């Protein structure tokens, strides 16, 4: 037992097992090979749902920065997801923009949206913030539903899949690998953020807001930074989601979607990257694996969820930061 609790690692205790560079590199190599080989093992349906799970890993990593790192309860994360998807959809369909130009535009607009909604409201305490984010999420969805520019309730159809140096990213397999790359980048960014000065400020604010402020940390600015990072993840996820499906509609950005992403973050063990990844895989794969139960599948999923939380109240990934 250490005298002082160590700073929690975003790896959530993995560091203790993978304690030498050799072990670490082996683990990374194994994971990369497994990721590359997975589509050939699991077939076409497996590839599609794994791609979906990877999308949720990306989104959950983003929300994890907001909820897990900075401790802000966000019930409207799907809004940023929607902003990313719709920006790409509208700018490529209506203005003929190339996907790779639309992508930074999507991120920019999501950041602006994050600042506009975050700046006045992030000084609120968590539960009030929760409803503000929920309201924001609903405003974005209803706006998308009502405007004709966003295609109304039918949404946008026929969004082109992107080209990358002569490679037409088109098939489910292509998108699977694209999402693999995105998730790897997302994990690296997430780890580096957690270990940065900003990451330490988030930790401080999360544990004791008032003490953090007394120590000279600008509470609202630090929270806003987390919110913006979350928005960036969400919009990138949304942009590639739009390119992958080729069709987006407001129903994909409902409150249910925000809740699902939040579930992924908390279920696995928030603040810990392996936990978040695990959580995202569970919320996507479990209902898929339960398909054979027909209309009972969500009921079984919910009961399972309940049991998991009762037996592992802090999330599935073990907390061992104190050792």
């Amino acid at each position, binding site marked *: 037992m250490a005298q002082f609790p160590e700073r929690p690692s975003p790896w959530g205790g993995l560091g203790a097992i993978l304690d030498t560079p050799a072990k670490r590199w082996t683990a990374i190599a194994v994971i990369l090979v497994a990721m590359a080989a997975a589509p050939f093992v699991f077939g076409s349906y497996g590839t599609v749902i794994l791609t979906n799970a990877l999308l949720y890993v990306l989104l959950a990593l983003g929300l994890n920065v907001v909820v897990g790192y900075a401790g802000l309860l966000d019930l409207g994360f799907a809004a940023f997801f929607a902003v990313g998807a719709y920006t790409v959809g509208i700018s490529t369909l209506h203005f003929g923009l190339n996907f790779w130009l639309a992508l930074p535009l999507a991120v920019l607009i999501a950041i602006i949206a994050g600042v506009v909604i975050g700046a006045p409201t992030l000084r609120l305490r968590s539960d009030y913030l929760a*409803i503000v984010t*929920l309201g924001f999420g609903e405003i974005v969805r209803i706006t998308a539903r009502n405007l004709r520019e966003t295609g109304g309730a039918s949404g946008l159809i026929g969004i082109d899949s992107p080209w990358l140096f002569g490679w037409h990213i088109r098939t489910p397999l292509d998108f699977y690998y694209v999402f693999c790359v995105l998730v790897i980048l997302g994990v690296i960014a997430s780890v580096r953020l957690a270990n940065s000065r900003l990451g330490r400020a988030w930790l401080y604010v999360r544990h004791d807001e008032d003490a953090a402020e007394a120590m000279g940390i600008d509470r609202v600015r630090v929270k806003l930074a987390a919110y913006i990072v979350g928005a960036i993840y969400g919009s990138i996820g949304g942009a590639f989601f739009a390119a992958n499906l080729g069709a987006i509609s407001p129903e994909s950005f409902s409150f249910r979607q925000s809740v699902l992403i939040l*579930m992924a973050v908390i279920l696995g063990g*928030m603040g810990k990257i392996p936990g978040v990844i695990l959580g995202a895989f569970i919320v996507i794969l479990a209902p898929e694996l339960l398909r054979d139960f027909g*209309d009972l599948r969500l009921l079984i999923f919910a009961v399972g969820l309940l049991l998991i*939380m009762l037996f592992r109240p802090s999330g599935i990934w073990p907390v061992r930061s104190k050792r």
Partner: protein
Amino acid sequence: MTIFDIFTNQLLNGIVLGSFYALVALGYTMVFGVVKLLNFAHGELYMVGGFAGFLLLSFLAPYLGPGWFGVAVSMVLAMIAVGFLGVVIERVAYAPMLSAPRLSILITALAVSLVLQNGMLTLTKGQYVPFGAALGFGGVRLGSLFISYNQMVLVGVAGALMLGLELFVSRTQYGRAMRAIAVDKDMSRLMGINVNAVIAVTFFLGSALAAAAGTMAGAYYGSLWYFMGFLIGLKAFTAAVIGGIGSIPGAMLGGLILGLLESFGTQLPGVGSEWKDVFSFSVLILVLVFKPTGLLGKPEQERM
């Protein structure tokens, strides 16, 4: 219709709708006040309450008739049944979690909500269920405003329930204990308050109010659906926050305000039914920006 007629009609619409929101919002706010939990399963208790009332009425209607008397008895029984369901949910799903991180309980609450919703989906095979009450169409005409007896009974019952709750919380020993726990749970325990019992009473009352709203909604609007708790749960949560979550008068006020915002929003040119939810959520956000604890909420120190 003149502008004035439209105004009075929408005012009445808003009050009726607001009464439902307020009844459900009360459960949200009470549970939040005592255990600091956003009980996302609360809307589903409204739904289950509606179905419980329906089942009871179908047993009782041959003896008591399908009018307001039969509905009232069914409602009271449904309140008791769903009240106990609320206590069971608290014991099974929330009580073991109270020492866990607060967000974990949120997921438990979402899971409970999914269980209730999908359980009812399976039981009803996804069908809409006609409630089967016969309440009549009588009423009083004031100029062009027609107020039906049903609306009067509904608002009256909702008001009476809220008044009863307010009296319970402000006058009784349990009510005092509830308020004490809301301020400091550990200290209350040290002062000899049976915290678990008080929490159970809180869940019982909150769930019973949701069941009352569910039964009345079923009887008044005429049909039930396994998904009917979702939207009102969301709206009631909003109402509770507008009023100041944790505050009982706040929930009533918030419910009423949200009901009025929606009915007048529907009529306003430039808003209309298409944008009415955007309108209410924008008002909500503005309220919180200028009054960060809601209209009647007390400032408090709380952490996740």
